[in-house]
Each structure stands twice: as C-alpha cells, then as structure tokens.
C-alpha cells in the first residue's frame, strides 16, 4: 500500500509541472500586455514612457527562461508573488475569493448529493417505468439549460415577484459576507447560485448513481439475496447502495474539483467575487502572475482530489494495488 501511495504522489509532480509549462507558454502567446491595458485606459492618451516603466518594473523584459524559473521557484517555496495588475500580494487577492468559491462548491455538492442519490436510486429500481423517465428528464434538464440563462431568470423572477407581492423589488445581496460574521446574510446571497449549480451537477451524479446501482443489481449476490427471499428494500439499502457508492463518490469528488475553477459563468451572473471571476479577469488583464498562480491552484486541487480517490479505491480494492 505504501509503495502504491508513494508512486501516486510522485506521479503528481509531472502533472503539476506540465500544467505550469502549459500556462506559462500559453499566456505569453496571447498578444497584449498588462502595462498597455493599465496605461491605455479607455483609449485616451497613451504615454509610451509610462508603459515602458511599468514593463520594466514587472520584469516583463527579462528573458523568458528567467521568468519561468522565478515562477517555478516561487511555487515551490509558496511565494506566489504580486499581481501584475494591482501590485498586491497574490495570496491576499486570492484569499477572500477562495473562501467564497469553496463555500459555493461545498454547498453545491451537498445539494447535488441530496438530489442525486434518492433520484438515481428511484430511477434504477424502477428502470424503464414512467418514474424513471420523469427523473431522467428532470436531471437532463439540469444539464441542458444554460446556467447563465437560469441564473438571469432566477434573479429576474425574484425581482418581479417581490415587486408584485411586496411592492418593493428584492434581490439577493451583491456583496459577500463571511458566514462566520453574518451567517444569514451569507446564506441569503449564496443559496441561489448554490441551487443553480447544485441542480446542474446533480445531473451527472444522478446518472452515475443510476448506472452504478443498475450494475450492482445485476450481480449474482443480489440474485442470491432475492432468491433467499430478502425484502427488496433491505437488499437495496444494505447491499446494493453501499456497493454502488464507490463510483458515485468518485464522480462527486471529481466534480467538486471542477467546481473550483469552473464556475466562471455562474459567478458572472450572480456577481460572486470568486475564483472564477478572478481567473477570467486576470487572463483578460494579462496578469501572468495571477493567472499562473490560479492555474496551479486549480491543478493542485484536481491532482490531490484524484490522488485521494485513487488511494481510496486502492484501499477498498486490493487488486488495484497489485496491478
């Protein structure tokens, strides 16, 4: 087990290094320059001297290999540097946004699990009945409806309905407060995007639950249990569900990792100051340091999540360790 664990840990390194190389070169291929963007404002006067000063300050004139070296070194000693757009420490910039994104990710995952497991189970047990079709339609709708459209509809709906019933239009707050400071205010803002996102992600988990459960239900030991005369309910709860949870947990884990970097559009619609928004802004601003830091962060989360899942699998299924 230990050997397997060490092997998986070592394999994380090349992935991270690959991600670092990819982001480094990809960003520098994009034409444009953070200094130009800062100093050119909305197209008024352009002071070339000011731009040159800025470029020198940010080390944009250093040879690429030096920039890359600084980037890798900084990542290894956990010194992420300063944002090229604001000049402030990157950890300071990411901190607040990370809190928000993690909270949404957790809430959305929670909601998606609450929806997915019961629905997936029903759908599997009653395969090919009307119930199955309704559940599948409901869950596919979650994927099919564009999330930003859904978000806009939700907010508009809130505004219009509150105005109709209460006289004054109401919408969720547009600023974030930490749940430890003001739990109610925090929840009022974040419940909506969590629901919109959770519903979307429940679709994947529902289908996985359904197919995993279906597979398990075909197994011989289930057939034996039925032959023994056990109640169907006990079969499901005690045997089938437990054994089908493995792939479901995997899917949920992986989806959680994707949630961290992937909520860009949702954040725009609900005006959430999260990692996704920061990501898009930093790419648009050509803020190399910030984008690199964020990509590494997301890649790290992804790689670690996969690692945890792999270890979990190997622990449960010894055959994997020895392959």
């Amino acid at each position, binding site marked *: 087990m230990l050997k397997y664990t060490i092997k998986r840990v070592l394999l994380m390194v090349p992935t991270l290094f690959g991600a670092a190389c990819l982001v480094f070169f990809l960003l520098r291929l994009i034409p444009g320059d953070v200094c130009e963007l*800062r100093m050119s404002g909305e197209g008024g006067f352009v002071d070339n001297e000011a731009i040159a000063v800025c470029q020198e300050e940010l080390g944009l004139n250093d040879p690429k290999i030096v920039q890359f070296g600084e980037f890798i070194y900084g990542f290894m000693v956990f010194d992420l540097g300063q944002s090229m757009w*604001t000049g*402030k420490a990157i950890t300071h910039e990411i901190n607040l946004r990370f809190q928000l994104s993690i909270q949404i990710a957790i809430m959305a995952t929670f909601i998606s699990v609450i929806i997915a497991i019961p629905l997936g189970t029903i759908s599997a047990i009653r395969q090919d009945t009307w119930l199955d079709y309704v559940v599948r339609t409901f869950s596919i709708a979650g994927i099919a409806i564009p999330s930003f459209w859904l978000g806009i509809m939700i907010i508009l709906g809130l505004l219009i309905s509150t105005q109709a019933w209460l006289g004054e239009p109401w*919408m969720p707050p547009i600023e974030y407060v930490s749940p430890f400071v003001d739990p109610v205010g925090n929840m009022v803002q974040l419940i909506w995007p969590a629901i919109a996102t959770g519903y979307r992600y429940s679709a994947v988990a529902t289908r996985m639950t359904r197919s995993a459960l279906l597979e398990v239900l075909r197994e011989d030991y289930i057939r034996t249990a039925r032959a023994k005369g056990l109640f169907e309910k006990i079969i499901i709860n005690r045997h089938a569900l437990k054994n089908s949870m493995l792939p479901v947990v995997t899917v949920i884990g992986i989806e959680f990792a994707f949630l961290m970097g992937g909520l860009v559009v949702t954040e725009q619609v609900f005006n959430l100051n999260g990692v996704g928004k920061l990501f898009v802004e930093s790419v648009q*601003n050509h803020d190399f340091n910030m984008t690199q830091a964020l990509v590494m962060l997301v890649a790290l989360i992804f790689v670690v999540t996969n690692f945890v899942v792999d270890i979990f699998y190997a622990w449960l299924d010894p055959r994997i360790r020895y392959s």
Partner: protein
Amino acid sequence: MKPRNKLAIALGAGAAFALVAASPAMAVKRGGVLNIVVGSKIPSYDGHRETTFGMIHPIRPFYSLLIRVNPDNPQSTSDFQCDVCENWKVSDGGKTYTFKLRENVKFHDGTPMTADDIVATYHKLIFPPKGVASSRKAFYGMVDKVEKTGKHEMVFKLKYATGGFIPALATPFNFVYSKKDLDTHGYAWHQKNINGTGAFTFVQHQPGAFVEGKRYANYHLMGKDGKAKPYLDGYKAISAPKMAVRLQAIRGDRAQIEFRAFPPKARDDLKKALGDKITVQESDWNCVMGFSSNQKLKKFQDVRIRQALTLAMDRWGGSKYLSKIAIVKTVGGMVFPNHKLAASKAELQKMIGYSSDLKGSQAKAKKLLADAGVSGMKVELLNRAVDQPYKVVGTWMLGQWKKIGLVPNQIVLPTGPWYAKFRKKKDQETMIDFNCQGVVNPLIDASKWQSSDIATNNRGNYIDRTMDKWYDQMNRTGDPAEARAIMRKYEQRGLDEKAHFAVNFWWYKINPHRSYVKGWNIAPSHYLNQSLDQVWLDK
C-alpha cells in the same frame, strides 16, 4: 489685456465661493451610506498613473484636486472651481498662473497641506523622475516651471499662453499628494496606500468586492447648511462587471447609482419598473465613436477609398436608431457638440458623410470606389469585444458598407489582443476607433489627428505635417475666433479632404439612479464629478 484672460481672472476669483443660484432651495439631509456599482476593476490607487474609471469611481472621493469642474454645473465646459485653492490670478499675458491655497486643508493623517504639497504633486505629474509613470504628462507640454512662492501660494509658469491649460489642470486624476509621503515612502507608495485630503477617508478594500470610505470630519469645503461637507456618512463602491447585475442592483436597491452609463433600454426598463423612484440624467459624452483605416497598407493610402468608407455612413439616420439601442447619439465632428469651437449643423453638412442626401453620398462613394478600381472589395473591420457601443455600432457599420457594394467582415478581439494588434503589429485594416477624454478640452482632445509620430493615440499611421502645424497654431493663439477658424480647417482636412479618421457619433451618457440620491449632477465624462462631497440622500 485680451478678453480671454479677463474672463479667466473673473472665473478664478469668483469661483472660490460659488453659491449655486440655479438649484432649487432644498434643505440637505445628512447621513446615510451611498452604494455605487462599478463595472471595471481597480488596478492601483495611484491617480497619476492609472487611466481607468474603475479606479476613479471608488478612489477619487479620498482625494482632492487643485481645481475642479464645478460639481453643481459640470455640463459647462468653462466653469472651473477651486478645490484646495482659494483663488487664482493670471498674469504676464497668460503665461503665469498664481494660485493662493486654502489654509485649513489637512491630509487624513493630520498633516496640514501647504504649497510644498502642490508643487511636489505637480512635479510628479509633469516632470516625473526616471522610472515613474505619469500617464497624462503630455497634457502639460505648455508648462515650463512649477514653483512655490509662499507657504500657501504657488505659481505655474507657462511657455506660451493657451486656453488649454486650465481645463488640463482640472483633470480628475491629479490627486493632491502629500510631500511628506512622497519623500518618506517614495513615488510608488500611493499605488497601494491612500492618504488624501478628500471628503472621505479610506476604510477598506476587499479585492474584487468593494471599496469602503467613511466621512472625513475635517474636510475643507463647506456645505449648503453651513457645516463642513460631506453630507454622507460614507460610501461603498461595489464591483459588478456585468451590466445586467448593475441594473438589477439599482432596481433591487442594493446600489443606488452607477456612474458610467446604462444603455437606453436599461433606462426604459428601470423607469417602467420603478417609475418615480428613478431619476434619469442624460448628457452628451466626451467620447467619440468612429473608424480609421491603416495608411501603412497600400490600399488605404488612396484617399478615395478612405472617403468612400465614410461617405457610406448614414449618420443622421443611424443616430435615430442607434440611440435607441446603444450609448451613442449626437452626430458631430471633431469637437464636443455644442462647444464654442464645435461646427454648426450647417458647417457639418458641408463635409463628406454628413450630408442629408444619403442617396447622393452613397452614389458618390460607389463612384469613388469604381474610380479607384476596387468596387466590391472586402473590408475587414477590427473591433473591440465590448458590447456598448463598440459591437452594436460595428454591426451597424457593416450594414452601411454592404449598401455600397462592399463585402465587410468584423474581427472582434478582447481588449488585450486588440491593443496589441494596432499598437504593436499595426497590421489592422480598418478599425473602430474612439477618443475618450475627461475634461472637455477640444484643443487637446483634437490632438489625435496629428501625425502618428506625435500623437500616440493616432491609429491611422500617417504623417501629415499640415495637421501638426495647424494643431500647434490652434493651441498657441489666445484669440478664440482665430482658434475656431483654424479648428474648422483642421477638421475639414482630417474628416473630409484627407479622411484620416471618420467620426460617426458622439457617445451619450445615460445615468438612471434612485431618486433619493441628490446633489450629483451628470458631467459630460464618466471621469468627472466623482468626488461625492456634494451628494446627499433624501431619506
């Protein structure tokens, strides 16, 4: 003394205690926190260096200027008022401006403000040391020296008299910094730190979320009720990149006002939803939407083609429709509409592309293209990936060119690559071009049409020394009539004869806000009048 300078003195002296006779006598109420939504991001806090409204809207209230546009009359292009000064005198044939400063101004950290601070600020702005960026240095080409002449008195010595100096001085980015801060902490300190003399003190900035300011008790300007301004207890500038969110925020009362602009439909929707609870302020905007062709490319060196492209534009008709769906409206030339130096409608219609005979213009365009041998040629329009008004006007322009037989195509790039294409690579064909300025200062605003080795925002890549000569003459003459005559020549050559850069429309600023926000008057630029000291909430 020339009449111009007499006017300047009168304005300067009288501006110190400008009592507003025009506004209705309404008792101001104190208290409350104003929530603003801002669509852009803050780079650093240093006004001398930054150029975006994303910085001005949240940070401006922390600082003061030497002189500023009169917040009660910001639509006027000549009404400038003292902020930290008491008055100013012009002498020496318009070459010396002496400023007497107020003696009761204190920085937020307690340091009293003296002439040293103003001199240090303007040295940083106009004569920055090597390695320090000052983005609007070029506005002050006329300044020779900035000197202290007393504890609360200082003087600007100009190389030549010009009407462009006072408006340039009122630039909202000219934050007054403390000499002590610059000496102790260096020239980069203000990028991440705030210590000003403005109506509000800095409370906090949550990155990407909001900037919060609190009322400064020792502000130097008095309110209408005899006590020190500001009237608000504080303000919060909340970040909201999507327009739909900003609109919803005002509707749901999460924010009361937005200082850039909303498109016409947004205004209509808000009005329909909230009726009287929404007040709408509108004005022309000191931004121009036009297009220029890259004269580095052989085909655009033929003036007939450039002329044909601008002849195809149905400006008067387009204005009618586009003003319903985009933030543009007024048809104009090089100068801000209705400014003294601007062309009258009759003068405009003499230039190509401004005629009310659309069919005639289109026929002429087709003929010019045929003469040049390029009927039905492809046109590639480089545009910026921003909806309002760029993409909307771009789509309209494509339709106009189709009508004279051209085959147009739009290339839309995000802002970074867009800048890179015409600044570094310079290989664009025709591009949507614009010219956004702060204080309305047509003499300086028209600098764009000079040769590209002089004007850094000239994207047409051409050399035209006649334009350069006329620009200089315009700026150095003290006689407004002469300036106007030269401006007409300059405009005619730039828009018609040489068709260097075509102006389609002037932008139109629409600011709907909650009616209980009072005291803020719309300015012709989203950079102006953002000090918030005169704003109060009627609740």
